[in-house]
């Protein structure tokens, strides 16, 4: 790699950085003010690409392209405002993070809507009128549109800065980012402010998407790619910091450009293909930044938000009614092979449901009572699956040993990652766990010789006596019940109380001699180990595993299950996981547009049960009691 090619790649990187920045800026603004983790931000970006494509091709010419970009930004901004007014406004009083569930449902709905409107084929827009060619630079050709992009990022950054510093709306936004309760107390109309911020954030997403149509096709996969990139940039830069987002975008884009530019490098007789590093480059950057600077490059420590939600009730041992219900359920589950004799699929599905329950309950253990929102819980699930599968594949280990290896590997991973993660809090902790999960994913994906790469490991089947469906079901049931009860036992032991004390008031907990970090760290390891058991069972239930058991999708599924059931209740994750797993299985069969239907049902549940299904029922029951 010569110096001039290095320099040229660096310039290339700047144009990618602008694209990254535009998606991330909106997400950062929305989070800063509303504290909503808007997963649908990538979907807004995707809609931006589609709408701009339609305008550019139907209207055509310079007006269709350049005018189309402006119109697209406005339209997506309007859509953002509509989302805030019609959906999010109704659930601001829900427990923290619950809005994430609503935006997740929107991702599903928007994706299917785009498929329905624009069809399945990738749509490549026209080249930008007036900027079709390229200029000569360093003996190479640099597209004019890339030069335009290089400047548009900083320009938007400057505009945003100006807006935030000089306008009343901007000042209110900054004030709300610091203390939104105080802003409300001073008589500012919060509803308008939130709508405005959401519209602005959505507009930036739409604008960013629209700008890309000259470079890449509108496709249905854009939403998840964009949201992944945006999260990383926002967190590396520091949540709520716009300049930080730009800086982070530049760093990430440059690291990638460098990796691509280096290509294959020989160290002695050893060849390293750096271009393969782009798979995980941004997550490596994120992990390093978060370990060195816990609040991102330019972020500040998160101000504790006085929750607008109703205060969480202390957990109580189950009432006798609940105990009896649980026992009845257990009896039914034990008799299930008999009850469902004529529909063997019930057992197949039940095994999946039980594994999901174990997965969600272990996540809830650190998320709810531990207060650590892990966005990368799939890491421990995946380590469990690979722990078991690798033992079977390489050491021909018997099933018992493999199932023991699963929680051990998962707990080891949780101990390692937890050690770093418990030093952070809030959304930074969430993102660091996500980064670790992605690093595990990428390692497994890339280490073809050991893990089978993208195809995974095949031939992990249960051995006798568990090789019949009934026997494996009983094994899964037993381990799931033991796992759930064990986690419950922990919560009612002094350990659980100290863990919650550390969540609710770290300062006071430290003052009375609790080592909060160590307790949380142990909590992490326990949850990881139990999650690993779920992973081990999964490997044997499916017979083959692949890296998607560690993927972001599975982590998000876990969050959805916990939130759907109700994060503030102990039975929430059990109900949430069961409902989600059964719903998904059922709906996948009912219609071609199953994602939209699943999203729609989740939206309905979100609006009807703003504290999760179990939380909603508890409220209903207590209200009944109060009135009678």
């Amino acid at each position, binding site marked *: 790699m010569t110096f001039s090619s290095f320099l040229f*790649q660096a310039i290339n990187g700047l144009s990618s950085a602008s694209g990254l920045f535009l998606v991330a800026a909106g997400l950062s603004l929305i989070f800063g003010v509303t504290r909503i983790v808007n997963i649908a931000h990538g979907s807004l970006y995707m809609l931006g690409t589609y709408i701009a494509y339609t305008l550019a091709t139907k209207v055509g010419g310079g007006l269709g392209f350049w005018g189309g970009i402006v119109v697209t930004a406005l339209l997506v901004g309007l859509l953002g405002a509509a989302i805030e007014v019609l959906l999010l406004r109704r659930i601001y009083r829900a427990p923290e993070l619950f809005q994430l569930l609503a935006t997740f449902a929107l991702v599903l709905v928007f994706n299917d809507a785009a498929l329905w409107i624009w069809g*399945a084929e990738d749509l490549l827009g026209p080249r930008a009128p007036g900027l079709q060619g390229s200029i000569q630079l360093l003996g190479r050709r640099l597209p004019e549109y890339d030069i335009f992009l290089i400047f548009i990022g900083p320009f938007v950054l400057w505009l945003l800065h100006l807006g935030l510093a000089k306008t009343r709306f901007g000042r209110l936004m900054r004030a709300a980012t610091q203390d939104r309760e105080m802003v409300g107390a001073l008589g500012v109309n919060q509803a308008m402010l939130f709508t405005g911020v959401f519209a602005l954030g959505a507009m930036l997403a739409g604008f960013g998407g629209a700008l890309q149509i000259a*470079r890449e*096709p509108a496709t249905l996969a854009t939403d998840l790619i964009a949201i992944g990139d945006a999260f990383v940039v926002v967190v590396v830069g520091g949540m709520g910091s716009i300049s930080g987002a730009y800086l982070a975008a530049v760093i990430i884009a440059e690291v990638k450009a460098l990796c691509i530019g280096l290509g294959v490098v020989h160290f002695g007789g050893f060849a390293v293909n750096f271009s393969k590093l782009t798979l995980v480059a941004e997550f490596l950057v994120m992990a390093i930044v978060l370990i060195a600077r816990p609040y991102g490059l330019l972020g500040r420590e998160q101000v504790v938000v006085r929750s607008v939600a109703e205060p969480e009730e202390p957990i109580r041992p189950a009432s006798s009614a609940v105990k009896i219900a649980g026992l009845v359920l257990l009896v039914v589950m034990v008799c299930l092979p008999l009850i469902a004799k004529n529909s063997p*699929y019930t057992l197949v599905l039940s095994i*999946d449901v039980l594994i999901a329950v174990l997965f969600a309950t272990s996540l809830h253990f650190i998320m709810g009572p531990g207060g650590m929102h892990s966005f990368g819980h799939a890491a421990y699930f995946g380590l469990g699956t690979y722990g078991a599968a690798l033992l079977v594949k390489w050491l021909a280990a018997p099933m018992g040993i493999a199932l023991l290896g699963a929680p051990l590997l998962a707990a080891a991973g949780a101990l390692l990652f937890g050690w770093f993660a418990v030093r952070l809090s809030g959304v930074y902790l969430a993102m660091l766990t996500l980064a670790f999960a992605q690093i595990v994913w990428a390692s497994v994906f890339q280490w073809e010789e050991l893990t089978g790469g993208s195809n995974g490991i095949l031939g992990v089947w249960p051995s006798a006596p568990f090789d019949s469906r009934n026997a494996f079901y009983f094994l899964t049931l037993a381990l799931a019940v033991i796992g759930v009860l064990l986690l419950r036992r922990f919560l009612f032991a002094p350990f659980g109380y100290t863990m919650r004390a550390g969540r609710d008031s770290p300062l006071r907990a430290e003052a009375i001699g609790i080592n909060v970090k160590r307790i949380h760290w142990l909590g992490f390891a326990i949850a990881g180990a139990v999650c690993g058991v779920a992973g081990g069972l999964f490997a044997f239930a499916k017979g083959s595993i692949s890296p998607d058991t560690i993927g972001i999708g599975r982590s998000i599924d876990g969050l959805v299950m916990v939130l759907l059931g109700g994060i503030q209740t102990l039975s929430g994750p059990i109900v949430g996981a069961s409902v989600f797993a059964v719903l998904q299985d059922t709906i996948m069969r009912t219609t*071609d547009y199953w994602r939209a239907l699943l999203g729609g*049902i989740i939206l309905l549940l979100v609006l009807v049960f703003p504290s999760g299904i179990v939380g909603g029922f508890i409220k209903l029951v207590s209200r009944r009691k109060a009135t009678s």
Partner: protein
Amino acid sequence: MTTARYLGSLAITGALAVSFAHGALAQDTIKIGELNSYKTQTAFLDPYKKGWEMAIEEINAKGGVLGKKLEIVSRDDGSNPGDAVRVADELVTREGVNILTGTFLSNTGLAVTEFAGKKKVFFLAAEPLTDKITWQNGNKYTFRLRTQTYSQVAMLLPDALAAKKKRWALVYPNYEYGQTAVAAFKELMKAKQPDIEFVTEQAPPLGKVDAGAVAQAIDDAKPDAIFNVLFGADFTKLVREGGTRGTFKDRTVVSVLSGEPEYLDPVKEEAPVGWIVTGYPWDKIKTPEHTAFLTAYQKKYNDYPRLGSIVGYTTMKSLAAGIAKAGSTDTDKLITAFEGLKVDGPFGPFMYRASDHQSTLGAYVGKIALENGKGTMSDFKYVDAATVLPGDAEVKKLRPAD
């Protein structure tokens, strides 16, 4: 609020009721379970579904097979192996099928292959390209229709060699398909052209190519020729960025799958003329089998077929032929019937090899051309996969013992 709550519980109850309701069991049909990643691979699988629907209609219009109509139970496989195995299990245990078909992604295809081997269910993999389905991880119960990765590369070899280029750049998606294709290309080329040099290797993540930087890195390596395995949105991005930057100018480009309408059509008038590709020039194939297929397809859907349509159509035609030859849907008889089964499809006759259960369905090899602002292929010929697949003795060594 109470009403809303009611609606909520109704929704759940309704969903549960659906999940336990059973489809009416028709006795006079042969049920085939089909599963695929319809939600994530829509561009390919939408035409694929149209293709198989048309085939089923044709077969049933002629009275079906063995006097029974074919009935397809089609499912989304969730685009991941875990869900795919559950869906396959559902098709077998709940729908009672003993014939499975479908899948697109290599890892879901392999997971279902493994499932079929373990549960002793017949499985015809429709689209996944990975060599492992019929070789390293092959089993008695699994057959595969689509021209596999190795064959796709081997078909391009004569043209790649004829170009007589020394310095090659490689660009491929960083997952099994890309890695296998490039490994096969390197090995086959080195054997015939020992002085070949691979000057750069770019392996961007699937679906996330940073096309400007990659195109530039390829250009900087100053190759004489480029071997490309990117497809879908990655291919589209590379073509546009490489076009602006002159990466492909005066260079031979050999590219796998790029002549398939699924991938070629989105780039419209920017179709990279002169690239040597495998693909499907639907508007130019004049064989009677294909013309009949094309006419029927256009009449039914008022749209032109993509390669997915061919795969879907041929999959069901294969199953019908296999069941007819077996005279039954008994799994073992079906396997015996499929070994050596001859099928006539829109691409002409082909067969399922007894040695590795791979079909000899071929592909069209030619050059990308631009006509009426749309990409198509010129100087193409049909290459029968039988001419490039390794012999029986060789694949026997690759496959595990049954």
